[in-house]
């Protein structure tokens, strides 16, 4: 544990990628093997289930610090991270412990089944005994979400440096379902391919947004276009008569989409498809909002399946007849995919993402203009001779989204941010004008946004909010309606869950309209007019 806490301390003490990689690769060289496995698990967000709920954590931390709970809560809102708050607040006598990271994690798995009394005793003892970074790491392991400025990519690079194994190969090895409790470092990282690859997905190839005029991409004849679908990116694997569905977040979501079970038997074994999970209510592509009703549901009821079925818009073929074909060109892979698609009856949830070829970039632009009516977010541009790469790489695939919809709205509520924005009011709620039955105009909340301003602008708004707070509701403050912001969003749909009756997709701040008074902000009916 000491070693791992020291690693986190070192990572915390630099902003430089090279130094972070160096610290990580040193750790991967020196740490005990099982600690390495757990570190990889933690840094790739595979932690054991949370052994203690956060309410209890807060209560006990406040008790140990001898402060009232409300004071702990206030501090937490300001610090912006629960583990950090606890590490800062509880008193410590600083004697460190000799237990390894692995021991701690095994204890946490054990802890989950203990009584509240035993849990409390365990936590208090460890909080007292660890130093600041030990306590921070220990509590982070309990609360989960170990985000400390180390991406999976960075970790993979460091592991590659420490082991001499190629980064892309490592990325593949680390994907999918493996259990840090039972797997050894030898099996996970060092061993040649002897494990069960049955459910293993491939790392997704991700695109960057087009940087300048698309004509810079060269002759249009070298490119194919597809619409960019707004669902959940997924890999569907059929091997040995079993189906596995992986989301882009490396989450196994097979059970959530029972529709795809029908593909087993139809699609030959040894096939991996790359595509998009899309909602398909009433026989047409729905909005992301429709898909929301499927995400996060543990039990998929029959009525939900009928109301909001899903399809798979398939756009690439990564494995065919048990062979990894990512090295073939896009066109070669598409040919195989299209041939496969022709053999599949149209009663399956499989739909082909059309490959479009254009004779000029203007034609491409025209196609992009049809995106909203086709329920897509814009276009994907794919180079005909490109292999299927690993991770986000520039050059062969680009996304060219449609311009967002925009509306001018009034800032009404603010909350402090988290992480690097802790203690700064950066999470805002925006409202639009609405006329009630008596003809009175009132502001109605329609969206929250917390990105789009520069750091300097955030500081200005933060200072203004602190001086213009009307009321406090826990971490939230209502502010004098005064500032108008232009809000951009990708899509819009009617919604019963929102007070405004409208749900917007990925709202963010486009700019601060200092030139506008709140009376000039848009109305809710302006917003509703944008619904197609």
């Amino acid at each position: 544990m000491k070693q791992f806490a020291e690693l986190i301390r070192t990572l915390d003490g630099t902003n430089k990628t090279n130094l972070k990689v160096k610290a990580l690769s040193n750790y991967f060289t020196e740490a005990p093997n099982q600690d390495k496995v757990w570190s990889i698990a933690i840094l790739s967000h595979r932690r054991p289930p949370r052994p203690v709920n956060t309410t209890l954590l807060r209560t006990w931390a406040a008790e140990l610090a001898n402060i009232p709970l409300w004071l702990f809560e206030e501090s937490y809102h300001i610090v912006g991270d629960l583990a950090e708050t606890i590490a800062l607040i509880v008193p410590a006598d600083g004697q460190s412990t000799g237990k390894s990271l692995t021991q701690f994690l095994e204890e946490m798995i054990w802890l989950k089944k203990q009584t509240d009394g035993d849990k409390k005793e365990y936590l208090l003892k460890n909080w007292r005994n660890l130093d600041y970074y030990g306590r921070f790491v220990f509590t982070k392991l309990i609360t989960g979400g170990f985000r400390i400025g180390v991406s999976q990519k960075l970790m993979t690079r460091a592991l590659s440096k420490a082991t001499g194994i190629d980064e892309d190969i490592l990325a593949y090895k680390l994907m999918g379902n493996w259990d840090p409790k039972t797997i050894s470092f030898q099996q996970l990282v060092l061993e040649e391919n002897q494990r069960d690859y049955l459910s293993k997905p491939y790392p997704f190839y991700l695109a960057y947004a087009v940087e300048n005029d698309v004509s810079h991409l060269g002759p249009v004849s070298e490119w194919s276009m597809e619409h960019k679908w707004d669902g959940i990116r997924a890999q569907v694997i059929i091997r040995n008569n079993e189906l596995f569905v992986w989301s882009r977040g490396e989450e196994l979501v097979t059970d959530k989409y029972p529709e795809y079970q029908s593909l087993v038997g139809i699609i030959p074994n040894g096939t991996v498809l790359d595509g998009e999970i899309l909602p398909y209510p009433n026989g047409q592509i729905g909005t992301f909002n429709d898909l929301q009703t499927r995400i996060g549901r543990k039990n998929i009821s029959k009525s939900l399946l009928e109301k909001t079925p899903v399809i798979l818009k398939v756009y690439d073929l990564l494995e065919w007849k048990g062979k990894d074909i990512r090295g073939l060109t896009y066109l070669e892979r598409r040919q195989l995919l299209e041939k496969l698609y022709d053999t599949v009856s149209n009663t399956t949830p499989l739909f082909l993402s059309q490959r479009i070829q254009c004779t000029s970039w203007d034609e491409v632009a025209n196609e992009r203009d049809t995106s909203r009516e086709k329920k897509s977010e814009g276009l994907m541009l794919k180079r005909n001779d490109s292999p299927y790469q690993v991770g986000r790489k520039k050059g062969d695939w680009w996304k060219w989204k449609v311009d967002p919809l925009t509306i001018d709205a009034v800032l009404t509520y603010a909350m402090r941010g988290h992480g690097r924005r802790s203690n700064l009011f950066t999470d805002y709620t925006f409202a639009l004008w609405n006329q009630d039955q008596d003809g009175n105009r009132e502001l109605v909340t329609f969206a929250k946004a917390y990105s789009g301003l520069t750091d300097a602008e955030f500081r200005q708004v933060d200072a203004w909010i602190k001086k213009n707070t009307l009321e406090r509701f826990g971490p939230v403050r209502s502010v004098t309606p005064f500032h108008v912001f232009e809000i951009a969003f990708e899509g819009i749909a009617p919604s019963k869950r929102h007070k405004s009756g409208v749900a917007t997709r990925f709202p963010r701040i486009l700019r601060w309209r200092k030139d506008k008074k709140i009376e000039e902000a848009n109305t809710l009916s302006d917003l509703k007019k944008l619904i197609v």
Partner: protein
Amino acid sequence: MKNPLLKFTDQGIYCEPAKVFLDPWKPVDKAIITHGHADHSRWGHQKYITHHNNVPIVKHRLGAVNISGRDWGKSFTINGVKFSLHPAGHIVGSSQIRVEHKGEVWVFTGDYKIEDDGLATPFEPIRCNTFITECTFGLPAFQWRPQQEVVSDINQWWVNNKANGHTSVLFGYSLGKAQRLLKHLDPSIGKIYTHGAVENMTEVLRPIVDLPSTELITKDTKKEDLLGNMVIAPPSSHGSTWIRKMVPYVTGSASGWMAFRGARRRRAIDKGFVLSDHCDWDGLLQAIKSTGAEKIICTHGYTEIFSKYLREIGYDARTENTQYEGELAEIDIEKEKKETE
């Protein structure tokens, strides 16, 4: 309380019987000033009264003003009200102001800390009825380690940076923090260079306190000379073109705000050192207790939270709005930027 000894007005804290203001934020006839930071000693008063050691600081910042210096603990009377200045331990020349009238005693702290930093005259608790306190770091999440531990971390950081072939750039406010850092850096590790704003303020303080020698970075300073050495600079220089001369460098910041990981990451600083010229949570509570005051007024910082807690533990505590900038410390950086320009 019908006629409080000290009132909070639009112009600042006002002592009506004496007709004098304490750290006013608008121009007034007569002002008693706790210390030299911009939000406490402002421009435009007819007359300034402050501690001797603060006189050169105010003159440096505000130019030729009508100012007179006083000694620690020596009382002076204005219109029948007895005033005296007592060390606040915040920065060199920083005072608490004791006000006594008709048997009632009020103390106004300005900014203060209770740890002896080896530079500012250490904080001295003053018995009073009403204690007006800052609470910039009035949250239990703020708990400082002893200065000795923090400065030894800083010196170790410098040694490591030097070994890696990097120049160390350490940010601290040009008045106060910069000199505190200078005082405790180990000159045997290397040479200490300064930014102009830091150098000027340090020159002002050299006659008052003993500080190691420094070298101002000028157009003629060579990159090679800086390598492996230490540079003390105001926070506003981070991200400026000036700092490019230090390449390859690593950055550090010494501030109470560095207790929060998010605060450090937001500023894109490599290393944060938690070193503050304000009290931490326990420091505030200890200071309040040592005054014996029953009434507490919180002026800036986490005032709502801190005063609520004080009421829970039995004090008659409330908040008053001032224009001192505790919670808005981010703004200090903007302000300092203007000052250094």
